[in-house]
Every structure is written in structure tokens, then in C-alpha cells.
């Protein structure tokens, strides 16, 4: 099946370029919210990727080997972190700027708690409680794999 027809393609492009008589913007603008949406979508993509990663490892023969179960736990923690951060970004938008107060002589600001939003923001800001353990899990997993491979390598060399 012929998918690309040069004549048709050129005609369509010319129609869209020369056809409209109204003001044409050469480039699409990237307004403020676009960055946030892109970031939030990236968080969702991260969740899907990590979920698939953890699930595939869990279903495969790998968890029977040393270390891989840590990758499953790490992947799940990263999924939770993404969800945590995803919610955190939205909540940040809901907390008014005026609630962050920096009194005279203080280095660190204070948060004026007026509703559940500020409380939730406070909790969700501590997202390192999830992503650091996730990374530690990956590290343990890698260490175990390295130890196993090193032992195997020594064994192979002894056999040779």
C-alpha cells in the first residue's frame, strides 16, 4: 500500500500555508501552564514505566536470583513517589503565596495553616521520604547482583 504521495502532500501543505487569509502564527506558543502539564504528564509516564518495570521483574524468573526483588520494591516506591509528587504539584497551586510568611530576622519562612490544603502541602513536601528509600533499594539490589556475579566469576576462574 502506498502511504506517501508527494503531489498530495505538497498540495495539502500549500493549502494550509496559503489557504487561510487570517493572521498566521509561525510558531506555537508555550505558555506557563504547559510546562506544568508536561511535567505532570512526565510524572505519569514515570509511573507507567516504573510500574511496568516492577511488574515485569516480579513476573519473570529474575526475583529468584539475588537482588532483583529489591528492584521490584524500589520500582513500587518510585511509583508511590511519583503519585506523591504529582499530587504535591497540584496542591502547591492551591496554597496562596501570601500564606508563606518570612518574619523579620528569620531565615526560614513559616507556613500559615488556614485549611487542609496547607497541611497536605506540608506533608507532600517531604517527598524524599519515598524517593531516597527507592534509590537505596536499587543500590542494595545492585550490590547483591555484583556480589553474586563476582562469586560466579571467581568460581569460573577456579574451574578454568
Amino acid at each position, binding site marked *: 500500500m502506498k502511504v506517501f504521495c508527494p503531489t498530495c502532500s505538497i498540495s495539502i501543505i500549500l493549502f494550509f500555508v496559503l489557504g487561510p487569509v487570517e493572521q498566521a502564527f509561525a510558531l506555537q506558543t508555550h505558555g506557563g501552564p504547559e*510546562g506544568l502539564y*508536561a*511535567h505532570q504528564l*512526565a*510524572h505519569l*509516564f*514515570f509511573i*507507567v*514505566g*516504573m510500574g*511496568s*518495570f516492577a511488574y*515485569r*521483574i516480579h513476573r*519473570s524468573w529474575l526475583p529468584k536470583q539475588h537482588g532483583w526483588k529489591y528492584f521490584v520494591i524500589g*520500582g513500587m516506591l518510585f511509583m508511590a513517589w511519583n503519585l506523591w509528587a504529582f499530587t504535591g504539584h497540584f496542591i502547591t497551586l492551591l496554597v496562596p503565596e501570601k500564606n*508563606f*510568611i518570612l518574619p523579620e530576622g528569620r*531565615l*526560614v*519562612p*513559616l*507556613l*500559615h*495553616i488556614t485549611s487542609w490544603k*496547607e497541611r497536605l502541602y*506540608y506533608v507532600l*513536601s*517531604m517527598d*524524599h*521520604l519515598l*524517593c*531516597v528509600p527507592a*534509590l*537505596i533499594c*536499587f*543500590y542494595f539490589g*545492585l*550490590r547483591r*547482583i*555484583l556480589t553474586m*556475579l*563476582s562469586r560466579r*566469576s571467581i568460581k569460573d576462574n577456579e574451574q578454568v
Partner: protein
Amino acid sequence: MYWSLFPIWILDVSGCLVMIIISFLCLAVARKIYYLDTENALSAYLLWFCVAIFAFSLSRSLGHILKHVLFFAGLKDWWQSFSPISGSINTMTFVIIGAITLFFNRMEKIIHRMARDKEKIEKASCELLSLNKDMEDIVSERTRAEMALRIAHEVRNPVAIIGGLVQRLKKKVSWDKKEQEKLDSVLKQTDKLELLISRFECLVSEKSKHFAEEDICKLIDESREFVLSDAEAKGVDILYTPHTGKLNIQIDARLIKVVIVHLLRNAIHACDPGASIRISTDIHDCWLELIIQDTGRGIPSDLLSHIFEPFYSSGEIKTGLGLPYIRQIIKEHKGSISIESQEGNGTRVTIRFPALLGELACA
């Protein structure tokens, strides 16, 4: 009610530093794993995964730390300029990690396929070792047989002559008792020598001990299985059309397996990717026919007439010991082998065994 953001600030800064350190350690360990086995797909994957995790941790943590530093330096406005850059890089690392982790699905399939192939290779290697052992046994057996035959030939005749002459001398001449005893002793020794020769001849008779009734279809299946990985690697199809029912025949299964494997390997070697090899078995006029036909490059006509000659050379193409040895094996089974080929049109090898060797019903 006012809550201090100090705990959050402390947790954020320390968390960022810990993230950088741990992700760096992860990268270092993944690098070590990779260098332990550079050809392992999983090691390479882990390295890529850790590179992405390190990039993510670094971009995120540096962004956060920079934000706090600028805040305390009273340069809060500067952060407004840096924030989009830091955020974009951070978003990019999310996408990279997402892509790498999603790729694990494909990776797992590749690893699984590699493990399966490795298993196949190990199995083929075991079979090859067993076949090699069989070949060694065959060679050793034949060497022993030839040695026995040679000794029998070289020693039997002189011993028989000596024995005969001594017998004649004993009859013709009247010897005293002492000399008679000496002659008897010579005769006794020649008898001993003849007995020794007979024992050597027994070694020759052992040659037939491997002949047994075998199903040739089963043997073809095993041989086909043996070369299947080579054929798959080259993109050559091996199609087998067996005769309906069992084809039991009196053969040395080890030798016939060597023959079929060698012919199939030759056929694969002569085939280009996309070509096919057909194996068929049938009975014709009290003969069991085994045909191996390929659609490969064929054999040049000047070489075809010398194909069974060892080390015959024509231009760049040379014959080895394989086909002469195969013909020898077929001959020992009272069979025949013929090769028809046209250059560019493939080759057809026909092996015929007399059905009388087994329990085949003559068609």
C-alpha cells in the same frame, strides 16, 4: 497557626545530597557489573538504567539545592529564571527513565530468548561431545581392527609355514626322543602363536556389535534437531517429510547419525539465507531411500565427478575427508550414495540402504 518550613528545608537539602550520593554509588556498582560481563544484555541495561537514575537525581537535587541557595542569598528572582531550565531538564529525565523502564519489557524478551538459545547451544554442545566420543570410539575400534588384521596377515602365514615345515620334518626324518621333544615344543609354540592371532581376529569381529535395529525416521529427527540452530542462524529452512510409519533397519545408529549430520551441515553451508533443505524417506523396490535435497548454490560440474575423492582440488574448491568417509560408512551398510547437482540449482543426495538389512516389508 504557623508551621515552620525548616523541617521541610532540612529534609529537602539532606535528601537531595543523599540522592546524589546513592545514585552515584548505584552508577558505580552498575559499571562494575557491566565490566564483569560486558556481553551480558542485562548488565548493559542496568548500566543504562543507573545512568538515567543518576541524571534524574542530579538534575532534581541540583535544582532544589540551587533554589534554596538563591533564596538564602536573597536572589529569589534569579530562581524565576533558572526554574524553567531546571524543571525542563528534570522533566526530560523523567521521560528518559520512563522510556528505559518501559523498554524492560522488550529487554526481558531478549534475555529470555538468549537464555533459551544458550540452553539450545549447551544441548547441541553436549550432543556434539557425545558424537565426538562416538567418533573417537569408531576410530579407535577401526584402528584396533586394522591392527589385528595386519598382525593376522603378517604373522599368520609365517607361523603356518613354520608349523607345516616342522610337521613335515617330524614325519620325514626319524628323530631321537630328545629332538622329537624339541620339535614338539616348536609345534606347541606355533599353535600358541596361531591362538594369539585368533584372539586378534576376535577384535575384528567386535566391529559389528553396534549394529542394531533402529528407526531411521527417529534418527533423522535427532540429526535434524542437532543442526537446527545452525540452520536458523543462517535463515535456512529444514523441512522433513517422513515416510508414514516406522522404518526400522539394521544399522550402526552412531555412524548413520554422523552421515546425516554431515550431509545436513554441508547442505546448510551451501545454502544462502532463505533457501531450504528437504529431507524425505521412502521405500522403493526393497531399498530404503533417504533423500536430502537443498536449494543452495550447487556443486561445480568439474568437482562433482571427484566429490568422493579425498583432498581433490579444483580451483578454489577442495574436497576433504568427509564425503569419502561417508561413502565408506554407507558401503559398510551395503548401501549406496549418489549426488546430483547443478551449479546454482541446488544439490540432491540420495542414500539407499537394502531393506533386507532390517525388517522392512518390500514394497
